[in-house]
Each structure stands twice: as C-alpha cells, then as structure tokens.
C-alpha cells in the first residue's frame, strides 16, 4: 500500500499544473481558445505535444513517457482544474488508447504524440444510449478495406479530428456482444459527412454520417478492447471531475469569505459553513474514488474492473452533481452568469455525467454484479 507519487510523476504533475495555470489562469483566455477554428487553441496543443503529454502512453523507446493510469489521472485532474478545452480525452485517452490496444499503425501513434494528428472515437449511436455494444453501424469487406454505413453521434472532437476510430458491426444483431470491429477512418474520406457543434460545456462534438466510407480494420471482436478503453476514459473523467470539483469548491469558499450581506461576510453564517464543509468531504471522497478508478483500471479481471469503474463513475457523478448544485446555490445569482467562472465548472460537471454512462446506469451495473469486487 503506497500513495506516494514517484519523482517522475511529481514532475509531470508540476509541469501540467503550471501549464494549466499559465494558459487558463485568466478565464477570459478560454473564451479566445474556444473561438479558434477547431474550438481549441492550436498553440496549446503544440505546447502539450512539446511537453510530452500527448506521448504519455507511449513507451520510452517510442519516445514517450511510459505513463499509465496514475499519469493520466494527474493530467486529467489538471485539465479539470482549468476546464481545458484541448482534445486530450478524445485524442490521447480514447484515440491512442484504442490504437495501442489494437496494435494500430506506429507512424500514426508517433504523429499523434507529436501533435500532428488528432483522433476521435465514434461509438455513440442514437438508439444505444450508454451501451457500447449497441451498434447498428455496419462494416462490409471491400478488398483490403471495409466500407462503413451508419450514423454516429456526440463524437467528442469529431468535428476536427484527422482520423476517426469507428466501432461497427461485422456480424450479428444490433445488441450482440460479438461481431464488433474497430476501424480507422480518414476524416477526409469520401462518404463521411460531419456536422460539428458546441456542447453545453463549451467543448466540441460532431454527428457523423457514414455512407460507404472506406476504412481499415484495427481489430476484430473488439468489444473487450472498447470496454477497457471506455473504463480508462471513465477513470480519466473521474480525475477531471475531481480537479473541477476542487476548483469550484475553492471558488465557492473564497466567495463566501468576500461576499457581504446583512453587514458581514456570508461565510460567517453557520448554515453555509456546514454546507461548505460538506463540499470538502465530497471532494475528498471523490478524490479517493478517482484513485480507486486509476488503480482498478489495470485489474486483469474484466468483470471486476468494470464493476469497480462503474462504482467510481456512479459515486463521482453523484458527488459532482451535488457539489456543483451547492456551489451555484451558495454563490447565488452571480454564479448564474456566463461571465463568472463557477457556472462553467458546474456545466462541465453536469456533462461529465452523461459521458460514458450516468449515475443510474453505472449504479445499475454495480447492482447487477452483486456489489463491489473484493
């Protein structure tokens, strides 16, 4: 049992935190980043590449960091603190995670690590809700390649990604757990139509229609890989939530100390003090659960891993929801304004809940498994 970071991990945490406070410390900058062509700052992305953050999962021989879940946790927590808009989850956690899991092209991995290509994972379909295996998109063989047909939705950063990894059905019925393939698609390929849009939390996503779009096969029978990488994304989202929760809590506590009503700082009112104390308890519990997620994501037993990650997503989702609402309430009107930071943290925390399964969904999975793994 050991909760210490290694020296390398400590350095990583320091550098990513410095990056986030430099680039996102002034909240107005975030607005400017979002206004750029891709919905995020090209310069930030290059800087992240230079820092080696995009090569995090690559081995040192490949020029990477050899990073695992703990490293991802440190990066994502900082991303949560700054409400960073660059597509780290889509490109590195999901995209590189899938590519590496499927043994995808090393050159492409190197390009991604260098910041020269971005990735997105197109799995969501209208009817599927939170079930990763619910797929109507089909893949049919055409020589060396495959032709994909179907519609994918809410593809994170799918509007600007250079390559898109697509889950599609090679065989079987819509909800079969077998017969699912993973494909690599050039976003510029014929037969790909993308409609990009902002999401409620200021990030970007796309609807993607595939009409005979030509793609290469990354993996057959890919559901176990997809589920593993989705669990890695859940661990990452838990860490992001913790970063956002702590920042929002601190923002709230600071506001309580400065806002005057009835002739004194509202932080002197005990009812509000107790609620602020509960926010601290919530962030500590969420942090513990995000650590649990980071450690259990490497659990070799897929069923145990999956139950543990569901438990983490459920609890962090619940605590994030409670804390977000309390932060708005304790601030009062100011937090309802677009100008002020707090509302943006609240919105991101709300949207984290609908990514890769909400609280009900994940709790149901824990219940179905009969409880937590030992």
């Amino acid at each position: 049992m050991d909760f210490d970071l290694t020296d390398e991990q400590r350095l990583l945490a320091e550098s990513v935190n410095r990056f986030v406070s430099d680039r996102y410390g002034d909240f107005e900058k975030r607005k400017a980043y979002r206004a750029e062509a891709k919905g995020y700052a090209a310069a930030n992305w290059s800087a992240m590449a230079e820092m080696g953050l995009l090569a995090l999962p690559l081995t040192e021989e490949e020029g990477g960091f050899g990073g695992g879940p703990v490293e991802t946790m440190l990066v994502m927590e900082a991303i949560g603190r700054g409400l960073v808009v660059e597509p780290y989850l889509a490109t590195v956690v999901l995209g590189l995670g899938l590519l590496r899991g499927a043994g995808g092209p090393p050159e492409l991995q190197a390009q991604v690590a260098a910041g020269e290509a971005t990735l997105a994972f197109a799995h969501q379909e209208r009817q599927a809700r939170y079930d990763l295996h619910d797929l109507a998109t089909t893949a049919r063989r055409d020589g060396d390649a495959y032709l994909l047909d179907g519609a994918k939705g809410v593809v994170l950063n799918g509007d600007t990604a250079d390559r898109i990894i697509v889950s599609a059905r090679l065989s079987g019925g819509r909800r079969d757990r077998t017969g699912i393939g993973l494909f690599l698609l050039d976003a510029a390929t014929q037969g790909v139509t993308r409609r990009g849009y902002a999401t409620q939390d200021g990030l970007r996503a796309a609807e993607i229609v595939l009409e005979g779009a030509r793609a290469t096969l990354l993996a057959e029978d890919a559901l176990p890989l997809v589920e593993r990488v989705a669990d890695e994304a859940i661990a990452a989202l838990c860490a992001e939530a913790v970063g956002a929760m702590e920042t929002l809590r601190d923002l709230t506590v600071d506001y309580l100390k400065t806002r005057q009503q009835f002739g004194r700082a509202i932080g002197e009112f005990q009812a509000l003090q107790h609620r602020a104390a509960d926010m601290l308890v919530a962030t500590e519990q969420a942090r513990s659960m995000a650590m649990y997620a980071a450690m259990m994501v490497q659990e070799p037993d897929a069923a145990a891993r999956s139950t543990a990650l569901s438990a983490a997503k459920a609890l962090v989702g619940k605590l994030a929801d409670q804390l977000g609402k309390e932060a708005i309430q304790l601030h009062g009107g100011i937090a309802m304004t677009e100008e002020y930071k707090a509302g943006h943290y609240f919105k991101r925390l709300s949207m984290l809940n609908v990514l890769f399964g909400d609280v009900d969904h994940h709790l149901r999975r824990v219940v179905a498994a009969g409880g937590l793994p030992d």
Partner: protein
Amino acid sequence: MELRYTAEEIAFRDELRQFFRTQIPAEIRRKVSEGRALARIDYVTSQKILHAAGLATPNWPVEWGGKDWSPVQRYIFVEELQANAVPQPLGFNVTMVGPVIATFGSEDQKRRFLPGTASLDIWWAQGFSEPGAGSDLASLKTTARREGEHFVINGQKTWTTLGQYADWIFCLVRTDASAKKQQGISFILIDMKTPGITVRPIVTIDGGHEVNEVFFDEVKVPAENLVGELNKGWDYAKFLLSNERIGIARIGMTKERLARVKRLAQETPSGEGTVWDDPDFRRRLAWSEIELKALEITQMRVVAAQRTRAADKPDPSSSILKIKGSEIQQQATQLLMDVAGPYAAPRPDREEDGLNLPSVGPEWADAAAPLFFNFRKVSIYGGSNEIQRNIIAKAFLGL
C-alpha cells in the same frame, strides 16, 4: 373536508381549459412546454388574448378589470394556465406593480397606468435588486434626490428580468440616506426612455438573455411618479412580495413537465426497451410525483385558509411552497436531462445563426440541459431558499 372540486368548480376549470387550449397559439404553448425562451411578441400575444377575455388581471379590483373570484377559483385559474403551458400574464404587471398602483397609487396614476398594464401595452420591469443587495434587499443604494418637480435617480439595479423589453420600470430608491435601512426607501415609476438609463444584458449559464443590469445616471423623473408616500416604499414592496402566494410553487407547470418527462421517457430508446423501463428512473420520477402531490395539497390548504385569515398576515406556507416548489421544479428539469442522456450534450447554434438546421438529437433534447441550468435560479431568486429557512426558523419556530 374534501379534496375534490365541486361540480361548479369543475365546470369553471373546464371552461378555462377549453379556452386556453383553443385560443392561445399552439406554437407559444409548445415553447413554454419545452422550456424555451419566449419572444416579446409571444408574451404580448398571449396576454392580449387573455385580456380581451377579461382573464389577464383576475386578482385586481373589479373596477380595474379584476374578477370577484373565490380563492379556489383563482387557484384553478393559475393551475390551469400552468398545466396548459400558457404564458402567465406578465407578473411585473399583473401581480406586482398593478396591485400596488391600484392600492396605493393616486387616481391619476391608476387612470394613466392600469389599463396599459393590464393589456401589456406598457411592459413593466422590476427595479429592486442591486449588486450589493441580494438577499439583503434593504441595503439598496440607488438614490433619488429631489430637485424641484423632479427626482434625480442615480445608481444601479440588477437581475432585471426581461428588462430589455420594458417600457417602464418600478424602482425602490433611497430618498432619505439618514434613515434606518428599511426606512427612507421610496417606490417610484420610471419611463425607460428617460435619458441617462442604460440597459446591459446579463447572459446566463444556459446561454439565454433573460436578465439585465440597469444603470441610472442623473435620470430625471417627474415627482408625480412617486407612488404613495415618500419613504414608505418598503411597505409597498412588502405588500407586493406577499401579494401572490398562489402559483409561487408552479405546481401546474411541474405537473405538465413531469407528464412530458414520462411521455419522452417512453419514447426514448434504452437497451432492449426505453428509458421508462428503467426502475431507477421511474423511482426518481415517482418520488417527484409524490412530493408534488403533497405540495399540491399543501397549496390547496393555503388557498382554503385564505377564506378565513387576513391576507397580510405572514404565513410559513409561502416559504414552504417556495422551498419545496423550487426543489421539485429542479428535479423535473433533472429528469428531463436524464432522459436526453448523451443527447443532452449538444448545443447547436440553431437559432442564433439563423441557419435553421435540424436538431442534433431528438427535437426536444437540446433544450433539456439549458433548462436544467436555468432552473438553478428558482432556489435563488425571490428570496433564496436559505432566506426562506431563516424566515421559518425565526418567524414561525421562534428560534
């Protein structure tokens, strides 16, 4: 003791229901039902239809267009408006400034303002809140300085709902700086076209523009626009705020919304079936329905008690209705967002850029998250739920 309506009350309700469903444009009612922002014209259209039928200002004195309804009838009226997704007559006009003018205004003010206030030819805004005075309303700083036949106003109001549409604004202003907090405040009517007034929009986290800041820089207001007595404004404001207990919990609206949530859950695929098949979802929905039922009866008890008690006596029920009403309203928006699931996330620029693109997900889904965000306000404004708890503790429990 009888929960059910009498035959007469049912006939009254059915008549209103029929009127609302046939006379108010369906498009306006759809927007209300989905929780989308209404345009100015939507409010005006709807209120003019009600006004023409004598239904815009039932709570006013009969001589100024009111109805001599029983508390139960008034209650039915508000519930049916909400349950049928009819925009309520503008509150600033009909439940706030109208009754104040009718009760405390001069005859001249009544003649001048009440007809247009009822018909929405005059759109009123409320100028109470200030940046430094949120829950602590009485600490307001906007001043009115007497200069001959005018008051000269300086200061700033905020959270001015729909102020961008307003023709007039009724303000609390400080007319005696030396008096104690609640004293020295007056209630004054200001034409928004007066030089020196600037309105600045506040965009809220749902992306909407519903509230504003209003700045007053040496704004000259004729002295005749003072309502009632100088330095008695706080009394009028209290009268105004305690004026309308019915409808504060918006039970009719939440009922309509929960019914819609149920319908949409039955249409939204999940797993082998729909969201409705999920027992956890249904459990949460059932709790909201049950709590709403209890609150509905709490509200009915308040209505029934109005027959026998003085209207201006304070009553814990306003605070209860506010606290529980806001909680259940918020639960309903949460449930709606949960039904939308992944499709709660998209926020396409459908209207702003005039592209008129199709929805990203289900047609209703992109309004779910903004409504959820926007409705955080209902436990904050109009005396936050914390203030309501203070009131209950102090005024009714004696703590």
